[in-house]
């Protein structure tokens, strides 16, 4: 890997966001509206104090954390789509750039996006609803890192599909991640799922993160095991997905698809 090539792609995206208001809005608009709606739902539910309140205080945090995963995924997929939209893919892949360097750059870009959106949401939650995400404490750091990686896994998967099936698969960039939401147990504990779905959910790193988060908030122990599972699953999945991306890349070169996407 060559750093200057990764830096070149990052620069390209920074130029893009520097100038494009719609793109910047896209990062903040939806998460912010989500936050407002859930904030009011939370205020409403707070009226029924007692047993609910534990779950209720979790909502806004869960929302912010889910958005981290979503933005991490988008950071990868949208970066690839930007190259399709501007008919730039061939400029990149007929240069010395390697697919792994391309992925590394999109990952870096996704970290920028996640950082931007997190800051806004954390501040907004605090200002409007006096909600402080940091009640989760130091656990937040490993949780967030794992959510970012979980987002990358879905992002690399979606990107491979778009590369292979072309712009018709573009909707996956926004839709794919929601396929995983029910089994990520973002807003409810895993035990509400039917047994067979629970079994599947345990293979989803995000489910471990959100379960772990609930453990911390309910003060029912230290979520070390969940963290270990999430990390291990993430490492395995990300490795597999990067391998799959490279495989799809070579399939696309074989079939001459790489240079035809977007035509």
């Amino acid at each position: 890997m060559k750093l200057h090539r990764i830096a070149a792609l990052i620069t390209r995206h920074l130029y893009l966001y520097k100038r494009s208001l719609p793109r910047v809005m896209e990062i903040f608009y939806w998460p912010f509206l989500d936050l407002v709606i859930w904030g009011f739902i939370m205020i409403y539910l707070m009226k029924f104090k007692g047993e609910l309140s534990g779950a209720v205080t979790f909502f806004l945090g869960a929302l912010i954390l889910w958005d981290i995963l979503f933005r991490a995924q988008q950071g990868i997929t949208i970066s690839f789509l930007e190259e399709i939209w501007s008919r730039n893919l061939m400029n990149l892949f007929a240069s010395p750039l390697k697919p792994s360097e391309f992925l590394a750059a999109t990952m870096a870009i996704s970290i920028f996006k996640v950082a931007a959106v997190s800051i806004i949401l954390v501040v907004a939650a605090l200002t409007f609803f006096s909600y402080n995400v940091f009640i989760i404490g130091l656990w937040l750091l490993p949780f967030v890192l794992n959510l970012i990686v979980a987002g990358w896994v879905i992002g690399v998967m979606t990107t491979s599909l778009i590369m292979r099936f072309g712009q018709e698969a573009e909707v996956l960039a926004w839709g794919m991640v929601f396929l995983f939401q029910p089994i990520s147990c973002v807003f409810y504990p895993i035990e509400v799922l039917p047994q067979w779905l629970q079994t599947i959910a345990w293979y989803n790193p995000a489910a471990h993160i959100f379960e772990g988060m609930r453990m911390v908030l309910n003060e029912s122990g230290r979520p070390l095991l969940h963290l270990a599972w999430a990390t291990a699953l993430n490492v395995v999945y990300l490795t597999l997905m990067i391998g799959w991306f490279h495989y799809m890349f070579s399939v696309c070169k074989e079939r001459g698809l790489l240079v035809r996407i977007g035509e």
Partner: protein
Amino acid sequence: MDAPIAEVRDLVKRFGDFTAVDGVSFEVRPGEILGLLGPNGAGKTTIIQMLLGVVTPTAGVIQMFGLDLARHRERILQQVNFSSTYISMPYALTVEENLRVVGKLYGLTDIPRRIDEVVKKLEMEEFRNKLTRKLSSGQLTRLTLAKAILTDPKLLFLDEPTASLDPDMAHKTRSLLKEVRRSAGMSIFYTSHNMREMEEMSDRIIFLQRGKIVAQGSVEAITRRYGQRDLEEVFLKIAREK
């Protein structure tokens, strides 16, 4: 004679059952403009895409600078570049920003100076700070040419570089390419289905038809061999024979 810049042997590309390139062999010599001429669908673009490593050949060998493309992709691509009508550049960036990104991508040193040179050479001063989205098609063509020569390639691939230009711009572009070749000493591999353009530009020509080379040589040699007055007549003769 100097060693060839690029050497292609028995190159084949099949898409499913369809053979787009069918056992093509040729070489590009140092400093020459080699024209690849053929009707639509002959396989010109596919050949260029294979030489740029974005389409994998079904069979055959591609060597550039004495290295095998399949094994030395990075080193080879560092020394070549391309332009064509079917690519563009990020619309939301200015011309200058786009060139800066390309400079970084190829790890150029002294990028601002290189950009100044190229902008001057291609007479791009007046739209250098314009958004790429707002360029006319002639300006966009100049930008993609600029990105191609910015990296000072030893071998430049051009796929129908003048196809979207009006006659005046096309003429200017051709003079420019000849000038670039002269001043930088690069080899150019050029496709077109425009015979006049080929006659004007190329030192040597490869005639491609349905994925096969049907004639190869200098314009004079080819026209003489086929007993015709110009390339167009040769082309028609060959096309009708088959």
